[in-house]
């Protein structure tokens, strides 16, 4: 059975498991440190960082997060840790800030994840955070705040990281599963917009789908990304986008309405993703289709086994919540609690794949 032809070549690192320490706070710290290390392995480099005792300066390139002892959270003017990452492929001066700080809660379960599409972060000390004029906050909360980024952290749990980076470095994805359940509880995703409209100054997207204190259903669902505008973009100002589906009808995506296999083929439907900024009157300073995401598909909500691989023969794609990612074709995906051997077949011949730039200027009646 033919499957979708990938638009990118991927380096996939599946099943990077860290067992629980038995203490929830320690597990959260371990996850934070692992997130740093993962980003450094996915094409990001160190801009500068702060271990709470020593703060670097812009572009000193020093990694000061050697161990979890370097991770200190604060909610006041006291010391805290932070880290600035750089990636010159997704954007010429694209940067990411992770900070262990929140004005509302100094919990180790919180992180502030911000991106700077082009301006870059500057400043920062052991008692202040770096800032950027174009900073966008990805984690829960208001601008500049910290919030949930995975979880649930209410119980001690191990976690499993799955990472993807396209060989051209333009797309980075991290999915985090937890042993507290069998669901992917965190998603961090950066990438270039595929087929953006002409004139988009910084054609990239930035997303963090996060869990909460007690959420157990995962956060890569239609409710989180299709029905809500939780993917960020920037074009002279930040804006929000829905992770739309190339095939939607009536009131939802094909995967929301087709919850069983095709009666004629026995295959599950999948639909490529399209990024859609809602009306100017809502949430956003941009509107319209902003581009597409290569090699990411919406699945049917009838598929409920996390880590199901497609198809049975090749196992070249994997299900996390309602999204389908490329997979390595070999490894049994680990859902945080166990390896998954379930396979299924998707219908590959019909998904309407990104077909190139189809933004067409209009002429009024001739």
């Amino acid at each position, binding site marked *: 059975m033919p499957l979708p032809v990938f638009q990118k070549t991927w380096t996939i690192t599946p099943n990077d498991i860290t067992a629980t320490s038995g203490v929830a706070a320690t597990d959260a710290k371990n996850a934070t440190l692992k997130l740093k290390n993962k980003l450094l392995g996915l094409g990001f480099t160190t801009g500068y960082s702060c271990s709470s005792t020593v703060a670097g300066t812009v572009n000193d390139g020093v990694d000061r997060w050697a161990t979890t002892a370097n991770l200190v959270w604060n909610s006041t003017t006291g010391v805290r840790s932070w880290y600035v990452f750089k990636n010159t492929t997704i954007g010429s001066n694209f940067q990411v800030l992770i900070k262990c700080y929140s004005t509302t809660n100094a919990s180790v379960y919180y992180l502030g994840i911000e991106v700077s599409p082009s301006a870059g972060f500057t400043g920062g000390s052991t008692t202040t955070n770096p800032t950027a004029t174009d900073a966008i906050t990805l984690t829960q909360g208001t601008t500049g705040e910290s919030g949930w980024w995975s979880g649930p952290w209410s119980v001690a749990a191990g976690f499993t990281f799955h990472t993807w980076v396209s060989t051209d470095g333009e797309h980075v994805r991290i999915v985090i599963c937890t042993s507290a359940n069998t669901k992917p509880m965190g998603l961090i995703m950066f990438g270039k917009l595929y087929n953006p*409209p*002409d*004139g*988009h100054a910084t054609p990239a997207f930035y997303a963090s789908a996060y869990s909460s204190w007690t959420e157990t259903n995962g956060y890569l669902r*239609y409710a989180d990304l*299709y*029905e809500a*505008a939780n993917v960020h973009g920037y*074009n002279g100002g930040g804006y929000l986008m*829905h*992770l*739309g*589906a*190339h*095939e*939607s*009808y*009536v*009131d*939802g*995506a*094909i995967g929301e*309405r*087709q919850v*069983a*296999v*095709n*009666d*004629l*083929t026995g*295959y599950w*439907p999948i639909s490529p993703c*399209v990024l*859609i*900024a*809602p*009306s*100017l009157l*809502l949430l956003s*300073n*941009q*509107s*319209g*289709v*902003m581009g597409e995401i290569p090699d990411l598909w919406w699945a049917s909500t009838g598929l409920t086994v996390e880590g199901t691989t497609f198809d049975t023969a090749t196992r070249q794609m994997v299900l996390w919540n309602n999204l389908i990612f490329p997979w390595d074709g070999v490894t049994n995906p680990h859902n945080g609690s166990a390896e998954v051997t379930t396979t299924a077949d998707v*219908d590959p*011949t*019909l998904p*309407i794949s990104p*077909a*190139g730039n*189809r*933004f*067409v*200027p*209009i*002429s*009024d*009646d*001739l």
Partner: protein
Amino acid sequence: MALPAVTKVWDFSGINQRLKRQATGATTLNTFRQLLWKIKSTLVGWGWTVRGSCNTAGVYGMDGVDRWITSADLNWSSWSSPSGWIVLTKANAAGAGKNLDLMIWLDSPFGHTAGQVWVSYSAFTGGTTSARPTAAGEKQVLGTGSYAPWTNISISATITDFNCWFHAIQSTDNEVQRIFATYNGTILFNLSLEKAQNPVSAWTHPFVCAWTTEITYAAYNDVAAFWAYDANATAGWMSLYAATAGAKSLAHGETGMATMSNSIDGAHFFGDIGLVSETTGKKGRHGQLYDWWFLPTAVLTGDSYPSTGAPQFIAAGQCAFPWDSINPLRTV
């Protein structure tokens, strides 16, 4: 600005045909007769054959004779009263030996503003001046068990005769045929008779039929307006939605994508269309439409693409069709 790739080669010789009103103050009968007669004539010109017919004079027969010689041969009436009909056949519509019959019945107590349209892959038989032909496995594609308006003009409307424009395009391989009319800047109706693109191999009859009175998300994306047959285990007809790019921000799949031009470049996104069924026993996405795209809802019928130069695509309702790159779509 890249334009969509057009899959088919198209014959545009049937676009922008002017249908003139009869006289100031006259009834719409003349216009409606002309429209339906043009549909019949166009289909015959495209290779459909007449299986049988019944005309104004009450002469009928399932004998291969076309009795709709002129538009005056079309007679509307209701149920037991004399009413006209015609049965047209498209050979090999859905594949070798899968011939599609299309039956138009001028049945309406309101006269010429309504009627019924049925299709079948078995031959229609019978029919008199007071009863329509029938076929095993037939499916009504216009109306539900009764008559329905076949244009967007209300069946009880009292408007007078009007000028309109008739447009017919077909792929040169005869597989995709669309007929629509425009009036006062709006769509009067759209008849779509076309093979599906990239059908699943198990679909035995990958051919869709639709008769709608508008070309909108409401007509095709919110409603399963396309009808198609499949002979697999639960043999029968299924209705298909036209699915396109969207996200749920308010009520409809199209909201967010389709209501506006792109704020960065002012351009419109052409949304490809998949065919999806929720019919019991026939559920699934089974194919796509050829060269038919959804547009932002804010477009106006008659707009064209690209913004400069020849009109390679036109906006008809809220959708885009290929166009002849020479003439604008006439709408008024």
